[in-house]
């Protein structure tokens, strides 16, 4: 059995205890995805699976056989940064950078959810269109912590990137 990481078919670990996070970092040397809390509380390990954001620390790699995983290493096009990457630079959306890959992957997943019309706990009308106010971005990105406190820059970056047509 195998899984597909950044468009490349790779083997699954032999030991079912290996998390998707550890498999990416230690099995495949894709160290862009970060291990923060390793218990689903910080979001640093966020990757995209079939376009949806998940926490790779709580995912057993074997459980994702046949799925398409996208990590931070897979979102740029050659040397051209993904618009969200550029926006994070433009808005100082990080200091130490440790949470940044998870923030960016999470934001890509969030954009897809918003385009699909997924409501949030803040929605007055569960079926209405979604306006990505600062508060709305805060709620939808609450699973990604930044211990440096760059959240305001992160929110600015995401809102600008969405305004300029960033997508997955």
């Amino acid at each position, binding site marked *: 059995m195998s899984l597909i990481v950044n468009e490349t078919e790779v083997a699954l670990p032999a030991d079912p205890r290996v998390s998707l996070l550890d498999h990416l970092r230690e099995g495949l040397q894709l160290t862009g995805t970060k291990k923060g809390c390793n218990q689903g509380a910080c979001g640093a390990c966020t990757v995209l699976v079939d376009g949806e954001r998940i926490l790779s620390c709580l995912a057993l790699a074997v459980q994702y056989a046949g799925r398409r995983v996208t990590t931070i290493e897979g979102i740029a096009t050659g040397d051209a940064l993904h618009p969200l990457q550029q926006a994070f630079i433009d808005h100082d959306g990080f200091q130490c950078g440790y949470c940044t890959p998870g923030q960016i992957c999470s934001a890509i997943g969030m954009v897809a959810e918003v385009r699909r019309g997924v409501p949030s706990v803040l929605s007055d009308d569960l*079926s209405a269109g979604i306006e990505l106010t600062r508060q709305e971005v805060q709620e939808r990105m609450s699973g990604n912590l930044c211990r440096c406190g760059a959240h305001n820059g992160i929110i600015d970056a995401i809102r600008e990137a969405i305004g300029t047509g960033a997508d997955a």
Partner: protein
Amino acid sequence: MTPFAYARATTLDDAVTMGAGDRTMFLGGGTNLVDLMRERLAQPDRLIDVSALPAAIAETGDGALMIGAAVRNTALAEHPLVRSRYPMLSRAILAGASAQIRNMATVGGNLLQRTRCTYFYDAEGSRCNKREPGAGCDARDGFNRIHAVLGASDACVATHPSDMCVALSALDAVVHVAGPQGHRTLPLVDLHRLPGDRPDRDTVLTPGELVTAVELPPLRFGANSTYRKVRDRSSYAFALVSVAAAVEMAGDRIGDVRIAFGGVAHKPWRALTAEAMLRGGPATAQAFLAAGQAEFADAQPLRDNGFKPALATRTLAAVLGALTTGDAA
């Protein structure tokens, strides 16, 4: 983690057959179980992955909604029929965890998640009867701000952490189960146990039984429902208290009502006492507060959670106020 064998079930029958062995557990999205295994609070020898089983949300002939146990939390919250007919359920799910976790977590797994009592998790430093029956409970005289005020026992004061289950309780959901002895159904309100002297048993399920679906019966006034969660920070935190409620007015009186509380007990707390007091009565703040006070009349607060009965009562009054004036969001 201790070593285990992993197998993926592709059909329900397979899953039940594969799940029959000793020390075998079913794996949904893994958002709770993988963490429990890493902490060695769960040490299965075999893990049967049921997260790839069919995950449909379908209307039944009698107007109910049948939700496959493998449906992800996000998929349930965003489903058009859930949003329109059972908005309290969408809102409860969206109030829980983070978007990443909601994308992974299954409906079946949400039902069977374990308490987040910090003493339960602290295997090295704390006694816990849920973790080790007979060991004692360090929460009862410890830091117990998040713990239960209703239905607890000397052995255990843990709360059930789910938001989804609070809405399912208020909505009279029915749980479909398959196991070695065949299929059965039970009301969601009967799935979870009060702790008594066996807090290690969260539910009434027997070994090898698998939740296969959750059925939502039609609720005429389900569209006029909501969920409100009060917590220490405004997102990505478990409830201190929460309220799921649906109301139907009959003129200027309450025709019918459904209420459940979260964060107050070892199980989602269906508030039958409050419902009975309110049904047929006036839709006034005074009546709402009286109903909440009656529901919590037998509350037994601990050192740090004495605020819960009053907070839950006020939250109920606010929710019912919104639902009876058409301003529930």
